[in-house]
């Protein structure tokens, strides 16, 4: 027990020392190792890299949609990076852009205490390959993104609405969804259904 907590302290020290380096360097230097490996392995797969304020844990890599699956698998199984945990999966809607939907994957490596954010940009109605076969935690989070943003994930084992009722129309987290008025529901007596269907 005590040993492991000491390990935790060490990794925190590592993070502090490595975090102080990139301050005077250029923007690209945060997470350069990951980007280099990715570009060597999958040339042309990543479009853009950014990190807010050069924070080490805010590295975010924008990927091409079709390379998402292989990059995710590669980062998960990579012997150095070991991004074994999918911490969060969510989406953002930018209605004014050509590709109005962004899906984000927050990956975390417990061994290396490191974070990376993968991003893909989508057209309206475009579907993404599921990552629930790589990380089981993606199952419910993809259902939530499907529910609130209307993005469908091909290959998902059980893609249903999760937070809203099954008969809900539209997707409330889209920016054009009004705050009041449309979307309010009139109560209707529910049809009897078999339990569990």
């Amino acid at each position, binding site marked *: 027990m005590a040993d492991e907590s000491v390990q935790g302290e060490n990794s925190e020290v590592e993070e502090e020392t490595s975090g102080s380096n990139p301050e005077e360097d250029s923007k690209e230097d945060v997470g350069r190792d990951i980007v280099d490996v990715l570009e060597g392995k999958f040339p042309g797969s990543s479009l853009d890299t950014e990190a807010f304020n050069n*924070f080490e*844990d805010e590295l975010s890599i924008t990927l091409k949609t079709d390379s998402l699956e292989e990059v995710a698998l590669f980062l998960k199984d990579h012997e150095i990076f070991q991004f074994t945990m999918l*911490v969060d999966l969510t989406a953002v809607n930018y209605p004014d852009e050509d590709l109005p939907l962004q899906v984000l994957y927050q990956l975390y490596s417990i061994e290396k205490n490191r974070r990376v954010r993968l991003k893909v940009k989508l057209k309206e109605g475009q579907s993404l390959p599921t990552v629930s076969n790589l990380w*089981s935690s993606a199952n419910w989070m993809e259902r939530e993104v499907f529910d609130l943003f209307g993005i469908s994930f091909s290959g998902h084992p059980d893609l249903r609405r999760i*937070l809203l009722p099954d008969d809900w129309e539209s997707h409330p*987290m889209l920016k054009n969804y009004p705050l009041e008025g449309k979307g309010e529901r009139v109560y209707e007596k529910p049809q009897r259904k078999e339990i569990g269907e």
Partner: protein
Amino acid sequence: MHEIEESNSKIQTSTVTGTEEFVVNMGPQHPSTHGVLRVILHLEGETVTDLDCDIGYLHRGTEKIGENITYSMFMPYTDRLDYIAAPSNNLAWVTAVEKFFDWEIPIRANYIRSMIAEFSRIASHLLWLATHALDIGAMTVFLWCFREREMVLDLFETAFGGRLTVNAFRLGGLEQDVPEKFLTLAQEFIDIFPSRIQDYETLLTNNRIWIQRTRGVGIISGEDAVDFGLTGPLLRASGVNYDLRRAKPYAAYPFLDFVVPTGENGDIYDRYIVRIEELRQSVKVIQQCLDQLPVGPVSCKTPRTIKPPIGEIYHSIENPKGEFGFYIVSDGSEAPYRVRIRPPSFINLAALKKLCMGELVADVVAIIGSIDIVLGECDR
């Protein structure tokens, strides 16, 4: 006469034995689902063969609300997420927004924040232990835990005026310093609480019924736990040492000394042991905060309207339930462009099917209790 014969023949045909799948609808109004969670169980005899969770009864669109109000106005909404440990949510929100800026948060404010966060961990774990033990049939623990939880809520009331939804912190520090009375009451609580933890352990840790109901039930391995994205005591009970207070220290945690307890088997009993040990560590942390509490201001200078620079951040802290994070996209205006809440209850609950498959129906209640969910945060 003829009718009786007919009914007899019916009885005979129905006595032919056979098994079929039985569907049980548990909740949403069920005392042991800890809120409005509906679980649809498919049973073969008493064994669970399939399980489906129906959530969303408490969905209030908190993320959508967050996109339409300012950064400071969103603070009270975070109270309503994990309402058992409201100050922890406040801490997650303030530290997340403060990541956009280079404000120097006063050390005193950081110490008080850590102290309050640990008190909310105690409040949360006490409510978990109370209801979890009650689910399995230990009534006394329930009453004892609520006695101590009441004292913690009194502390919140002394410091911030609220008991359940306290709205404890402000961007840049605290609204005002805690009163002197709070510090004396906190010290009194810390003095008696370790003996109370001992009392709970006397009732449960070596209790034969408790051990039979919890040991070897709802097992998840460390690898699977990471795969399911589990965090908090649930993950640590499976032997994975991951605690954000160590991995990415915030508030005053870099200066505080504590041990991160881990389990071995990943069953309900280990989760219980881990959480009990966390109570002890919280006491230790609070004692250090009280001893080292520096004097000085409790808030730094913040602009009148808070407009973070354009960019996006993800920041998470160790809530009593697990990793509670905010992903914020700022477009440079007064309101966030997107607020995503990373809810530990939601993601931990997703593993319920994995934990319950093949277990007995009576253990489902114990397993739900051991995950420690709050539906306010799960449904958002």
